[in-house]
């Protein structure tokens, strides 16, 4: 199989990440910048989840190998593979990256909310969320420094 087929997830990560970065640096609207930032962060989530996937593996919730579900999961898999990588006859995906990314998502939500609330305050102070207009006002502010009482 070609790289595109075997590493499809990772290509998606790269594409998503680049879209996020492009949005972040091409738009001058603060809200759209936050959207780009969110996309950029989400791409790492996909990266971690892809790392943790074991082919044929299921979510890391205890399943008995002799249960209906356990037999259903094991049916399409090579018995040697199950023997080598399985735990108690069932193959699980690596749950650690999921946990890590859960934390990273929480961090992302916190960043997003702080960013948006700063954007709200910027709107109150400057009357706009366009970076160009804010910069124009800032230049006036900077020129006034030291002169106004």
């Amino acid at each position, binding site marked *: 199989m070609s790289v595109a087929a075997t590493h499809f997830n990772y290509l998606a990560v790269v594409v998503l990440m680049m879209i996020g*970065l492009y949005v*972040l640096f091409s738009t001058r609207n*603060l809200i759209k*910048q936050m959207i780009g*930032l969110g996309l*950029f*962060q989400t791409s*790492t989530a996909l*990266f*971690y989840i892809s*790392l943790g996937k074991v082919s044929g593996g299921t979510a890391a919730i205890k399943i008995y190998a002799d249960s209906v579900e356990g037999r259903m999961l094991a049916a399409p898999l090579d018995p040697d593979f199950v023997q080598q990588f399985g735990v108690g006859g069932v193959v699980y995906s690596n749950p650690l*990256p999921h946990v*890590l990314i859960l*934390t*990273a998502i929480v*961090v992302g939500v*916190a*960043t997003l909310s*702080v*960013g948006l609330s*700063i*954007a709200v*305050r*910027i709107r109150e*102070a*400057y009357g706009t969320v366009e*970076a160009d207009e*804010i*910069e124009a006002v*800032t230049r006036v*502010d*900077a020129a006034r*420094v*030291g002169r106004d*009482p």
Partner: protein
Amino acid sequence: MILFEALYVAPPALTAQAPILVIAGPLIGACAAALSPGGRTAWVVSVLTAVFALWMAVAVAGEVAREGAIDYALGGFAPPMGIALRIDALGATMALLIASVGLMGALYSGHALESEVRAEKRTLFQSGYLVCLAGFLGLVLTGDAFNAFVFLEVSSIGTYALVAVGEARDRRALPAAFNYLIFGTVGATLYVLGVGFLYAATGTLNLADMAPRLAALGDNSAVQAGLAFIVAGLGVKAAMFPLHGWLLGAYAGAPSLVSVFLAATATKAAIYLIIRFVFGVFPEGEFGENFLRWILAPLAAAAVIICSMQAIFEREVRRILAFSSVAQVGFILLGASLATTAGLSAGVFYLVAHALMKGALFMAVGAFAISVRARTVEDFSGIAREAPWSAAAFAVGAASLVGAPLTMGFLAKWSLVSSALQAGEIWIVVVLAIGSLLTLIYVGRILEAMFFRAPVRGAERASEAPVGVLVPLFVFSGLSLWFGVDATLPASLANASASVLMGEAP
């Protein structure tokens, strides 16, 4: 470290839990501060919490001095499976530095906030300050790569909010905070990606466990990509040239307490993590050497020269100090890029020296700001006659920044020069000399205006800052002088840190 060996500051049962209490204390304090009825109560909570954090940090340092590195398994899950705090000489040094700066900042905030932060925001400000403190302390104590990311973001989210609070004085703080948030988050995300690469290659997140596994892998492009992502990501947080764009607005716009705290801890904690990864985790080899020689060292040298030049042509005092911070980060990284024990020791020593002197400088600027709206160099004219004590403390910090003899800055530059000569890197000595001369020019401009020019501020007169502000200010500049004469304490900490990093001691 030897000085801490005989130091038993807490009962053994408490000392055993001290590593986590250093972090948990400020986090609990942050909740208490947020719930307090008014700004004064929150301030008292903040000071008490900072005292507790410093006490615990000293207890940890004592344990590290006696035992070598400490492993603290969180929740009783043994590493490498569980998350562990791992504290060695370098971590203990950083924790001591951050906790001391945290305490001085908390003391200073009592009066300094009144002119810079809206009354209704002061309780939450103290809460955010303690969250930041917990984040930075956690960052330097943890032994887990992903845990470090969480602490990095805990502290960063706190600092974004703290910088934005500066809008009461200067509304440019808001776009600066937003900009900082964008850059900081991109940096942190790159760091997570880098950690993902290392995790994919080694299957562990524990730094001590990762190092031997990486060494066994040898030349591996995933590991090298991981290093690139991690250094680029942390470089943003450390204001490593040319990733320092966010720092200027943030330092200039934030309340002066936040500038003090960021200048003395935020970039330092990120530099710590870079040094930890490059020297403590990555295996020695051609790739690492080339990275230090051809990427880190030239960028650091460019920071020293270019940002010092920019500082010379800047009008606003806070922005001059911010540019100077980027240049000083360059000095620290130049020392580290030598990759010798002497060079690393000089880098760590410089890091402590810079935290003290930049802390003093930003505190003095904040002390002036209490009574007068002074922003540009012209505004500072004649301020030494109106507020002589703050001006004297500023002058001491400035002298240390230039590297005048009898200050800590002199010893820091001296050890950098001697370690560069030892390593045979003459060009680093030349960069250091040029950088110091440029520092003299921009610092000289401010000092000349302060001490030798007549005031031009019209009717507005500066007055001396209250005692509550002067005490922490004098502690910083006093330590800059004291360590300039007797540097036993910082030098022994720096040497112990360097030998840990170079693998000569546990």
